């Protein structure tokens, strides 16, 4: 079974949401982000799960913790998140798209028009 056919664990789904916010600029570098608790409440998930997400994002360097103050987007946060999301897109989503493109017999020209017009 290839890994793209599994559902992501919740803590990584939350990480995706946070990454998108960093990427879109909704959360800017050096900006404080919601606390673990606030995030848990907003999403209606277990705060322990959110704590795991923050730990994961901290390890990747996308966010950092100022003790006693809260979590902030790293100066390099956007770059880190962009790299990660690209890698994941290539590894997980492209194969699915490729399969579908082959199945439907879509030509490169059609694809180019659809994607880059």
């Amino acid at each position: 079974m290839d890994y793209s056919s599994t559902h992501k664990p919740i803590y990584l789904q939350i990480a995706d949401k946070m990454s998108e916010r960093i990427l879109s600029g909704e959360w800017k570098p050096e900006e404080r982000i919601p606390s673990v608790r606030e995030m848990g409440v907003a999403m209606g998930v277990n705060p322990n799960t959110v704590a795991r997400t923050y730990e994961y994002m901290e390890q990747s360097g996308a966010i950092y913790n100022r003790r006693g103050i809260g979590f902030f987007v790293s100066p390099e946060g956007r770059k880190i998140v962009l790299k990660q999301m690209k890698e994941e897109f290539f590894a997980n989503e492209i194969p699915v798209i490729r399969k579908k493109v082959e199945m439907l017999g879509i030509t490169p020209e059609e694809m180019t028009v659809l994607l880059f017009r």
Partner: protein
Amino acid sequence: MIRTSGLSFNYGRESVLENINLNISEGRIYGLLGANGAGKSTLLKLITGLLKPKTGTVEIDNIPSFDRNPEIQKEFFYIPEDFTGPDIPVERYASALGAFYPNFNKEQFHSLCREMDVRCDKKFTKLSLGQHKKAIIAIAISLNTRYLFLDEPTNGLDIPSKSEFRKIISGNISDDRSVIISTHQVRDIENLLDDIIIIDNRSVLLSSSMEEIQRKYLFGVESSLDGGVLYSEEGLGGYMTIRENTEGLESKVNIETLFNYYNTIRKRGY
């Protein structure tokens, strides 16, 4: 810490629970899952001391629940599935109950009522089913007991209220507080849970942390089946599968599929 050991119960000749061994620790959210009539409510009544075990023991902080020790009584609160409030305003009932629970927080109660849109100046008997349920949830949370037992809390809640419920549970858990939620509607609460306990056919089919399950199994949706699946069932978008997680990958636990998997194991008899 709550501990049941060798716990059994029957109504007359009908056995309801057999040899239940469970540990419930603090600071976690438990999902007590099982089909209707599996014995979930009976288990909650045994734990909270409303029923007396036929054999075995249930202890909260090392004191048998059925002793109904006042020191222990104030450490937990239980909302039965069929809770019906008395014919008095919600806020008066809250204060009356609050007198028995040293950590009752009146401001918290009022702010929860506001969050959930509950008119706490109204009598229970004047509230709709959903309002009724939300009112007692607001009271239960603001009593700030160490253990909170909720029997089918999302029954009767409309869709926005279910999401509100999740937010409120998430925002009110702490390291010294455990919430035990019984439900047959897993989807309503699955993202809240630290642990799941599945009761089926009178006994504990599975009691495990979500993390442990995630380490052990890999859950997927596959378009075609090749070998090596532990369990599969056809669903929308392909086969829901469970495989052994040999490579240390991470996937989202599909509780419904897991439940069905454990059920087939049991039926096969090993």
